[in-house]
């Protein structure tokens, strides 16, 4: 590397650091906006969950949510009224409660702050993504050589996935506050404890498998995180709903927060969908890693700590998917399995990289 190029690269690395710090500042603002959203939202007095749960007993469980069929006629005119309307019914054994109105609680002011928070999150995402790209340019390789780089990519992907879900008009704004908080935590840990100057890779990492294996690993982790957040909220919301069902009155704060979340059934489904959707990719990640290990170390599976924990995580998620298909294991038990599986993932990331030594010694801390 010529000194000139080296200097340019150091500049880029500096720029990357500035961008990461700036994104943290913007995430901070998004955090406060979300807090405002929840605060204003707490003034709404909707209490729809309680109403639905007590009302449901008399009216029976039939509720209708209809994707109205809209078909455009040949002339471009919309013909809605004379189209058949589809009524849906949820399955037996599922509490028939509507989703909460979201953090803003249907209040105009709360909604405004919520929108501000989402916009700020989107801005922070762009800045952070810029930071990751600058880092990649500064080393002229995939920005996944050490834990600092994993961490900044990890949170970028998690926020990106959230924004994509929002853009697809999925009901995920309830995730905002938790996500922004953990992203701040992740970045905080990254810049204080995990920071490593930008640098080249050790020979074992010189491989196009780095692009494939590590990028999918980070992506899976980030999306599993979103699934796990859904599972945690499901557990809270579910116990809140069963409290209501049993005729007890949950605490005021509890009610105010949980009332606004989607229904337990929705959260459960959300978490399942996310986890199930990433599971094949996680399977692929492990296999890609095995192929790479075959090239780099002469054996595709050697029970190195990293491999062990990837395997444990994989089996735990398989367990979760089985649990979902097994009577008596749906719901809370399955959610605990999902959380166990995600805890394995997190441990594989922080614990194994830092505390256990193995061939995957790229922690760089």
């Amino acid at each position, binding site marked *: 590397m010529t000194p000139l190029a080296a200097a340019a690269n150091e500049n880029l690395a500096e720029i990357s650091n500035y961008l990461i710090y700036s994104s943290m500042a913007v995430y901070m603002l998004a955090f406060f906006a979300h807090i405002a959203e929840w605060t204003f939202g707490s003034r709404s007095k909707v209490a729809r969950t309680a109403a639905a749960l007590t009302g449901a007993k008399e009216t*029976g469980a039939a*509720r*209708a949510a*209809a*994707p109205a*069929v809209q*078909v455009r006629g040949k002339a471009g005119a919309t013909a809605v*009224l*004379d*189209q*058949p*309307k*589809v*009524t*849906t*019914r949820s*399955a*037996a054994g599922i509490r028939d409660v*509507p*989703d909460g109105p979201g953090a803003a609680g249907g209040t105009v002011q709360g909604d405004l702050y919520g929108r501000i928070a989402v916009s700020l999150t989107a801005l922070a995402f762009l800045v952070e993504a810029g930071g990751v790209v600058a880092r990649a340019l500064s080393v002229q390789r995939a920005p996944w050589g050490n834990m600092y780089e994993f961490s900044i990519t990890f949170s970028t992907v998690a926020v990106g996935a959230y924004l994509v879900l929002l853009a697809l008009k999925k009901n995920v704004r309830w995730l905002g506050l938790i996500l922004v908080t953990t992203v701040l935590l992740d970045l905080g840990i990254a810049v204080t404890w995990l920071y*490593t*100057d930008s*640098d*080249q*890779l*050790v*020979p074992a990492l*010189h491989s196009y498998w780095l692009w494939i294996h590590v990028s999918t690993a980070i992506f899976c982790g980030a999306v599993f995180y979103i699934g796990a957040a859904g599972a945690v909220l499901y557990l809270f919301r579910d116990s809140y709903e069963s409290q209501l069902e049993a005729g007890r009155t949950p605490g005021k704060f509890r009610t105010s927060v949980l009332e606004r979340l989607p*229904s337990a059934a*929705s959260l459960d489904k959300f978490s399942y969908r996310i986890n199930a*959707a990433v*599971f*094949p990719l996680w*399977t692929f990640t492990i*296999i890609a890693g095995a192929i790479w290990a075959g*090239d780099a*170390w*002469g*054996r*595709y599976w*050697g*029970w190195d*700590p990293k491999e*062990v*924990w990837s*395997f*444990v995580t994989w*089996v*735990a998620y*398989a*367990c979760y*998917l*089985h649990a979902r*298909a*097994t*009577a*008596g294991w749906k719901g809370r038990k399955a959610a605990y*399995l999902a959380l166990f599986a995600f805890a394995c993932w997190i441990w594989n990331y922080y614990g*194994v990289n830092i505390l*256990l030594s193995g061939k995957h010694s790229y922690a760089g801390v």
Partner: protein
Amino acid sequence: MSTTDKASPETSDETTDETTDETPGETSEAESRASAAADATDAAAGAQLSTAPLEDSPGGPAVGIGVIGWARWFWRQLTSMRVALILLFLLSLGAIPGSLIPQNNVDALKVASWKRDNPSWVTVAEKLQLFDVYSSVWFSAIYLLLFISLIGCIVPRSWQFVGQLRGRPPGAPRRLDRLPAHTTWRTEKTPDEVLSYARTVLRGSRFRTELGKGQVAAEKGYLREAGNLIFHVALIVMLVAFAWGQYFKSEGGKLVLRGSGFSNTLTQYDDFKSGGLFDPDDLPPFSFTLDRFDATYEMTGPQRGTPRDFKAYVTFSEGAHGTPQKREIQVNKPLEVDGSKVYLLGHGYAPIVSVTDPTGKVIFKDAVPVLPQDANLTSTGAVKVTDGYKDKDGKTEQLGFNAVFVPTFAGEGKGTMFSQFPALLMPRLMLNAFHGSLGVDSGLPQNVYVLKTDKMEPFKDESGQQFKQKLELGQTMTLPNGAGTVKFEGIERWATFSVTQQPGSGLALAGAIAAIAGLAGSLFIQRRRIWVRAVTGKDGVTVVEMAGLGRSESTRLPQELAELAATLHQQAPSAPAALAETRVEETPEGERG
């Protein structure tokens, strides 16, 4: 869950209950009389949307059915989803200790030091086979049970699935409006017209359809089940491939000095491990010479000394008398020969040392490989002069030297003999000299990197201390009392290669790819049924009803039903009178989920 409902093999599915849960108060007298027969159709409608096994209730077999009864009960338990779940969970827990406690097959040295550090645990850990978790009896038991369970699960499911493929979509349940997605309208077309349109529409969307009395039944998404079965079969394939690889694999290591060669026979290896069924004749014949080895390191910055690039240049020839070819071997780019792979593992230095006897005759000159002890290649080894040395008095003896080599010395007075950088910036060789018997004649194999000094005497300097000296390149040290000289002549490089044969990896890869494909099919494809019913109402207008049922609640099902209904509706538009009816059906909230 209705455990008595044997008509439905799918009690594990929430949607089954959907079709059977009748609210008694709602049905009229006449209806309930017909309901016994109708219940069967209802159950069949939701049945066999999957081949997932029945949930067995816990508890032993009925009393007094003997060994066979117990065996059957045990088999049913083993192949149930619940036990599969428990075994899977145990497998994930069982894998954990192997990552926390060092493993023999990963790093035997670490096992030894763990045992030294935790003496009180050694007996327990050894009893539990904690140093060999992945080949331990208990770990093997878990996965073998799991795979037996898996086979016991797949075989009946496959038959069932074949049966489902041969069969036709089941008829509609009585009350279509109780299904997860439902729609209805009235049209002026006749029922037969509507049904024939419906069939065309459904077929156009690649549903399998079955025309019944006043209804069309349709089903789609069989690939889900196929994917699920493929996935589970692929798991077995992978396990077989893994076991195959374990039994037939071989792995040998060889240190090759620059300029020297290696040919692939058992005797040439420094160390060799193989599976139980490996046959040395399976080693493919080839040989290579190491022509050059390049290593580059980070020269500056906080990661100074971190390796950046390793490359071994070899002249390689395949077979006994192949034509020599130039090849490169890098860390991620092994050389592949006929089922074997040659990997570049490590590298290091070999100081070239020459030794003269008291008369000045050179009796030893060789490159002596030394083994790296740290990332900066501080290396240790031994120089052993076995033959040709006679001391001043003409007595035959052997000479031995403990060697410490550093490629980059910290500098005089720094008080450390640890290397500061892995490349040869300031090489130094420190030798401790001994004479006597090396103990190599006993016939026992000896570690070439370690000097056994129990039958040797150290050379002493004037003050009676062990004689040792640090040599620069080209420097000579003179042994006390004219016992001879030792010269640090030069430095050679070496690289270690590992040659592995791992049969079955192709099969494992095929299994892995099939597993991912099957999994994707299993998770992303929905198996669902759609029924269309068209009957003439009391007023002579045709009432069309459409409903859908999926394996699980899905937002896509109502969407799909809506689209199909819209298409069908174009051909069988609403009768004018029906307009008002559809309009009043208000929906309180939006789509959920």
